[in-house]
């Protein structure tokens, strides 16, 4: 199965993508994740102002048949959530990288080193199934 992994993003082993711009990280789930989940029908993400801890769950994404936790790629405060997805979470299936979930203010830049590069994530996807 060919899965899209843009080179300009960073990734987690829990299949989130992270776009790093200045002091903010934009977070979504990868094409691999949306494909594994199937039809996405429900999304639960935290309110603006919520404080996240890197590696902890910050929400859930549900397909018709399954529930998956979302994990924060970095620690920090949620500064925006994508309200466009609330009524139509299926957009994630259509365009995983165009459907961001939340934006987080980076608290500790050193945590960015823990994220995978596109190449490392590709390698991870190849070996984990």
């Amino acid at each position, binding site marked *: *199965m060919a899965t899209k992994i843009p080179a300009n993003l960073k990734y987690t082993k829990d299949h989130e993508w992270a776009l790093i711009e200045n002091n903010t990280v934009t977070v979504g789930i990868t094409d691999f994740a949306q494909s594994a989940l199937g039809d996405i029908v*429900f999304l639960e993400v935290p309110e603006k102002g919520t404080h996240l801890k890197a590696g902890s769950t910050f929400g859930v994404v*549900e*397909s018709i*048949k399954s529930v998956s936790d979302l994990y924060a790629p970095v620690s920090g405060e949620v500064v925006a959530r994508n309200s466009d997805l609330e009524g139509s979470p299926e957009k994630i299936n259509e365009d995983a990288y165009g459907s961001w979930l939340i934006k987080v203010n980076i608290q500790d830049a050193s945590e960015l080193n823990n994220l995978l590069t596109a190449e490392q994530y590709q390698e991870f996807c190849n070996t984990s199934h």
Partner: protein
Amino acid sequence: MMTLKTHLHDEHVKLGAKIVPFAGWDMPIQYTSVKDEVLAVRQSVGVFDVSHMGEFFVEGPDAEQFVDHLVTNDILLAPLGKAIYSPLCRQNGTVIDDLIVYKISSGKVLVCVNAANIEKDFSWFKENHKNFNCRLENRSEEFSLLAVQGPKSFETLKPLMDQLPDIQYYSVIESTFKRRPVIIARTGYTGEDGFEIFGAHETMVELWQKLIELEVKPCGLASRDVLRLEVCYPLYGHELSEELTPYDAGLGWTVKTSKKDFIGKEKLASKPSKYKLVKLVLDKGIPREGYPVLNSHNEPIGSVTSGTMSVVLNKGIALALIEIDKVPKDEVFLIDIRQKYYTAKLLNKTFVTGGHK
């Protein structure tokens, strides 16, 4: 654990199915999209490989009497050519399995059982068969089983079969496909009109290929589960188990205590139930198996046995077992989804009305 593969496994792989272990088998869970597969069956026609299910043949002068003695529903009352859904119970009235009995011809009965229960059921059949003059065979490994389901299933299948009359829902006939024997039943697990076709492996692989060529939608177990839940069919291991009686699952209509004698009759005569199975629908949130159900005072009263997002309603739906003495009179049900309580509405009819006659 080693998993078994159906004889259609290569076909599933060719179609890009997502394959998961289920009841000891590698089964296709979905091909393209669960939603599309559900809608194909509700609106047109889909095909499922359900070859993991078990087939027992009971043949001989006492075949019907023997099966009637084992199951709670009335087999003798039904005419030849009919299919009968029934629980199979122990003496204490708890459910060993739920199954379909096909009265193929005089002295020839086919019993189709759940994949996970084949060994258990067959042992039970053997243990109880001493006083009956009939042969008992577990022929599960010889048969593949395809379910062709949806409003267009008859018009799809009719030209393919050497002979397929417009039989009634819950009927069965012996026919042929390319001159090879098949058993065709107008049964299914979707609530729609549809057929289940039993045949030798090579025959069923050819039928599958023909159906795919005709653009019948291949459907996986995930859509099958949504379809059955939308029409409130129970699933063994969820709404039915060795801990429950048919009355717990709302299957009192399948227990014919008026018939002469059957295993469990004495216990079941008093209609024993510890639970009431309820149908719940939510405006927000998706209920899942195991989620607690609470009353308006936030007290636990039961739990969800099956839950999903309904494709037809686009709402969360659940079957839940509620302790019989805790069924709330105010009909207020809350479902605990990740420590948040969501209000659920009690339904008295099925979530979706299937189109079978």
